[in-house]
């Protein structure tokens, strides 16, 4: 699989106005030939990759090129039912009975295998999700391994974390994860549940199933007892089947607030336990005595990291009146230096938007912002013709009631507000109360 994206020459930072110095940019592409994806991935149920009952597969693409990467199985109710049965059997027969220190050793093995295969995982994560390779390589994959390491250690130590309580597993956990940090979210869900002695049916996001399935292969390679981890892929129907299955004891969901509410309603009246990790609209607050250049870096990381696909992205900015002008100027300059383009380029700062649907959602919200009278600033960078892209953007003059101030955009878009109050946290927390978060 080769990706051919043009990376354009760029002006040096700060040279935009004078144009005296021009730097020619040579891309530094991460190799993709060291790893070959299968053409088709099936469901991971009962320790094996099995064809879906539905006999249906869908294509998963590279959002930076729109090229197809592989075919992914679509789980129907039968498949989910089978996965839950396998998880139940593994829980009753094997996993709950295993000495915690032995459970730990399986989880340590998963951590080590992620480290061993870190390069392939990073490349696949970037190709399937659109995030810059420097982020998948330096953040997503090492943190995933570290997460398994950390929870492996807890498996036989839980009585120290919860003294005088009978720490026991719950049973079968249904876990539904989002597309913004695919492998890392799988790690966050799997590692603690496994360490505590539960078995799992994991449902990766529709647009980013590949690293979860590679994790399935790793789990196989680590020799985990069959059925302890099951991975079912598919669209919203598959997710609903997992969340709604009557024989799961626990549901863990990370994703949109809207879907989270739906799950909470569905769980009402059952004995299922529930963990939700949903959206946000986090404010950054800048006072006049802040070191402004450092603050700018924090702002940039806060909203443009991972294309803004972060639940805790700093999507709102409150600035004390006296420093509004320099902050806006610096922000414009800094945004102009962000390198937007091929995610496999090691120097890319902002990669591709995860999917066409997400791009349309961002565009729709941004259009509403302009319509409602906010002033938009957008980086003038060019973006590739194919794939899903959105230039780093920020708004000023945003009314508190406008949609872009109220709804999560989940993209590289920030709103700036001014405040004259010395205690800027007041408008921030006040806004929070108006909102669904």
């Amino acid at each position, binding site marked *: 699989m080769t990706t051919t994206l043009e990376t354009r020459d760029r002006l040096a930072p700060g040279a935009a106005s004078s144009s005296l110095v021009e730097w020619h940019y040579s891309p530094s592409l991460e190799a993709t030939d060291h790893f070959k994806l299968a053409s088709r991935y099936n469901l991971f149920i009962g320790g094996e990759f099995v064809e879906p009952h539905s006999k249906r597969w869908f294509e998963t693409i590279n959002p930076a090129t729109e090229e197809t990467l592989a075919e992914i199985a679509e789980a129907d109710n039968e498949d989910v039912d089978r996965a839950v049965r396998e998880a139940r059997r593994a829980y009753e027969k094997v996993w709950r009975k295993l000495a915690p*220190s032995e459970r730990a050793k399986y989880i*340590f093995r998963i951590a080590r295998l992620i480290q061993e295969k870190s390069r392939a995982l990073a490349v696949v994560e970037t190709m399937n999700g659109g995030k810059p390779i420097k982020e998948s390589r330096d953040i997503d994959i090492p943190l995933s391994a570290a997460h398994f*390491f950390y929870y492996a250690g807890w498996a036989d*130590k839980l009585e120290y974390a919860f003294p005088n309580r009978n720490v026991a597993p719950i049973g079968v956990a249904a876990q539904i994860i989002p597309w913004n940090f695919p492998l890392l979210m799988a790690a966050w869900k799997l590692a603690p549940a496994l360490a505590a002695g539960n078995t799992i049916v994991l449902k990766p996001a529709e647009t980013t199933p590949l690293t979860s399935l590679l994790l399935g292969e790793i789990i196989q390679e680590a020799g985990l007892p069959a059925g302890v981890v099951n991975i079912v892929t598919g669209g919203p129907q598959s997710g609903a089947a997992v969340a709604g299955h009557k024989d799961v004891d626990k549901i863990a969901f990370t994703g949109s607030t809207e879907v989270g509410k739906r799950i909470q309603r569905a769980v009402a009246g059952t004995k299922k336990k529930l963990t939700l990790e949903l959206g946000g609209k986090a404010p950054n607050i800048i006072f006049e005595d802040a070191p402004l250049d450092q603050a700018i870096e924090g702002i940039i990381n806060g909203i443009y990291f991972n294309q803004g696909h972060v639940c805790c992205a700093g999507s709102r900015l409150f600035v004390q009146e006296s420093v509004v002008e320099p902050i806006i100027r610096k922000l414009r300059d800094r945004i102009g230096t962000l390198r937007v383009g091929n995610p496999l380029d090691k120097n890319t700062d902002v990669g591709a938007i995860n999917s066409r649907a997400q791009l349309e959602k961002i565009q729709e919200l941004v259009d509403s912002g302009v319509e409602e009278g906010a002033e938009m600033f957008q980086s003038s960078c060019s973006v590739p013709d194919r794939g899903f892209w959105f230039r780093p953007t920020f708004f000023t003059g945003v009314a508190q009631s406008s949609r872009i101030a109220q709804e999560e955009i989940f993209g590289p878009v920030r709103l700036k507000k001014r405040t004259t109050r010395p205690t800027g946290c007041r408008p921030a927390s006040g806004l929070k109360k108006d909102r669904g978060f």
Partner: protein
Amino acid sequence: MPRLNVRKTYKLYIGGEFPRSESGRFYPVKNGKGGDLLANACRGSRKDLRNAIQAARKAFASWSDKTAYNRGQILYRIAEVCESRAAELADELRRQGVAAVDARKEINAVIDRWVYYAGWSDKYAQVVGSVNPVAGPYYNFTVPEPTGVVGVVAPEEPSLLGFVSRIAPAIVGGNTVVAIPSESRPFAAITLGEVFQTSDVPGGVVNIVSGLKSELVPWLASHMDVNAVDATGVASEALPALQKAAAENVKRIVRFDADGIGWDDTRLSQSPYAIYDFQEMKTVWHPMGM
């Protein structure tokens, strides 16, 4: 004619290297009292001990500065290397009179103990540390910090599991160690030095000085640059003298009483409080919110 095998010389392990005793002296290790000679071990001297303490002190800053995660990775690596060298370590125990099946069992327990303490690296601070509500405008918290150079006198039996059980909690907490292995059966512990040297453990983090405990322990106890002594392997009648000597620089003396406890008992012979034993609890009053 059968091939003549090459015998291994058992040396000290100091600062990541394997020197002989500077004294040139040795003591014979026999297979039980009056048994056959197995091999000669270095009879470590006061100067060897001093070199080991200096190496441990030198290694302390960077070892205690490593992230907890990193130390955990290194301890886990020790477990991995012990697993791959399990047969060799079991052989060392066997030739010192441990039955084959018991030797293998002891090695398994050794490996699991490394894994257990590797897991604690980034967790014990959460168990023994605290955030303390105080009656004033302060954010008050207590965190554990490693005490420094720890002298470990390992028990005579089990010679490897006892050695590992007392060293692992000291180093996972960021301390560096000068260890005196079992006097009667030192070989497995000395060979473990080769494991340390090939497991990403920086030189000087663990130093192993074999010899006669009656000579070495008083020097260890009175040394001014040793912060704590684990006296698990010190006979109870020798303890008062050691405690008295330790008072000179107010050393912390820790002694795990293994009487009646199986060293492979995972409920009783391993614990985060073994890590805590070699930590200083530091409390911080951070002014806030006037």
